């Protein structure tokens, strides 16, 4: 293992994060606060409880997931896309480092940033609503696994993307509908049966449900299934990444 290289890439990425820290934290905090004011306080006060949890508290895990997914995909993809775009990737490619080390450096940094921002959202949420965490260990497990697997997913997007438009395709166009239709703001029992079935094809439902279960013990799907879904997603992303490095796909001519 080339630990110095992992350390260098990780530190380099975290330095980039520090330079943009204010904007990367302030903007999600403001957005989330707005959600709580609108859905938690204004509308939420007229809504009935969902499975014994106040509406504002019910949506908190979903909002944290929304931010976490966006942050991880955004950072994971940008971290590798940018050197590809400017050409500085030559240095990574000509260094004595393996695929695993590159991934640990970039994905580790993206996940770290996602977790920092996610934790800040959690703290922000606690100012607006009563948050209880019934299964702290499972909560952290879901939190970390989601951060790692979606940072890796972002990393793959960064390698695949030919231009900034493709880079933004997932965070802007694909993730929001999946999160909004994935039970972040409602329990899927509230949907007509047809849409309940459709929802089960949405991977984000499993994430949000499992994460929410670790807070309030209420879930749309069995938490074990949720955990297996996250693990499965991680394995798929790892396999694709391994293939990318083996073939040099879009990294090497």
């Amino acid at each position, binding site marked *: 293992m080339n630990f*110095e290289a992992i350390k260098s890439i990780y530190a*380099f990425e975290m330095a*980039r994060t520090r330079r943009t820290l204010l904007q990367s934290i302030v903007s999600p905090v403001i957005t989330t606060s707005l959600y709580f004011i609108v859905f938690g306080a204004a509308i939420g006060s007229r809504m009935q409880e969902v499975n014994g949890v106040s509406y504002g508290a019910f949506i908190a895990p979903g909002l944290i997931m929304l931010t976490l997914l966006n942050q991880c995909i955004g950072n994971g993809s940008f971290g590798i896309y940018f050197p590809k775009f*400017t050409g*500085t990737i*030559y240095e990574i490619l*000509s*260094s*004595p480092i393996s695929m695993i080390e590159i991934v640990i450096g970039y994905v580790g940094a993206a996940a770290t940033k996602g977790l920092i921002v996610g934790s800040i959202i959690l703290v922000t949420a606690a100012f607006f609503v009563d948050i209880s965490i019934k299964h702290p260990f499972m909560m952290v497990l879901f939190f970390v696994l989601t951060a790692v697997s979606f940072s890796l997913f972002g990393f793959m997007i960064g390698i695949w993307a030919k231009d900034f438009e493709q880079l933004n395709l997932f965070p802007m166009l694909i993730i929001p509908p999946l999160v909004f239709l994935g039970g972040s703001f409602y329990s899927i029992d509230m949907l007509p049966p047809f849409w309940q079935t459709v929802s089960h094809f949405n991977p984000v439902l499993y994430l949000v449900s499992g994460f929410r279960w670790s807070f309030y013990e209420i879930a749309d799907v069995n938490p074990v299934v949720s955990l297996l879904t996250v693990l499965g997603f991680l394995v798929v992303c790892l396999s694709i990444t391994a293939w990318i490095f083996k073939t040099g796909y879009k990294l090497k001519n």
Partner: protein
Amino acid sequence: MAPIVSIRNLTKSYASGFKALKGVDLDIEQGEILALLGPNGAGKTTMISIICGIVTPSDGTVTVAGHDILTDYRKTRSIIGLVPQELTLDAFETVENTVAFSRGLHGCAPNPALIERILKDLSLYDKKDTMLRQLSGGMRRRVLIAKALSYEPKVLFLDEPTAGVDVSLRKDMWQLVERLRANGVTIILTTHYIEEAEEIADRIGVINHGRILLVEDKKALMTKLGRKQMTVELAEPIGVIPDALSPYSLTLSGEGTRLTYEFDSSGERTGISSLLSALSQCGLRVKDISTEQSSLEDIFVELVGEGK
């Protein structure tokens, strides 16, 4: 001694189908300075990129210090330093950080003293906290060199190091190359300037259209390349070349007003003065004289012609 870099049948077809390298064989000796001379598009950067791991070869093998570049890439890439042709640097990093970053990527523990020395050697030390995007082209080239030296490579590739570089950097660069050579570093540099190769190389390889046309000791090659042409403009046109001038195998052109003479500028006798006196003995009045070194292009044409 076994060559430090050994290239066999190296072939590259890009995805476009374009064949940039067509079976290159080349041995680079430990401690030498090899200049790869070739026009744009010859395949120089492609060859270097394959050895460094940036481009995947289509066929052939490369070993560095006996290690295969594909199966033993950790060993080979720790030995190799690369100063790329393009001035690609992170905009928002400082000079010192980006050099330290390169050292880390190559698995070396931090060594601020060494980095300080490298920055001083390259006249970059007073700029160590400057953002890279604020540097001029020449300064960026220095930073790229500092990055490549930060992990003390044994083999250094310099891809067109002096393209678009000012005179002072060029001088610094030659001094640096001399110092590195004194420390036993093997240096491969590419260029399309003959003078550059002439200045510092021990051996010169000529590459064109993805093939190595020749590799020779600089001295031997410079003799070959030393052919010059002298053009004599006559005041009055002549119909035929006088017999007395036949030993000089002149050619006549420009409607009888221009005589061309080819000679070897590195030879003991160029024959110029005797030709000039022969001209006046024949009663020809000379209006103007110019000499011209055969250009790199001419040499390529010649080499490619010989290769056929």
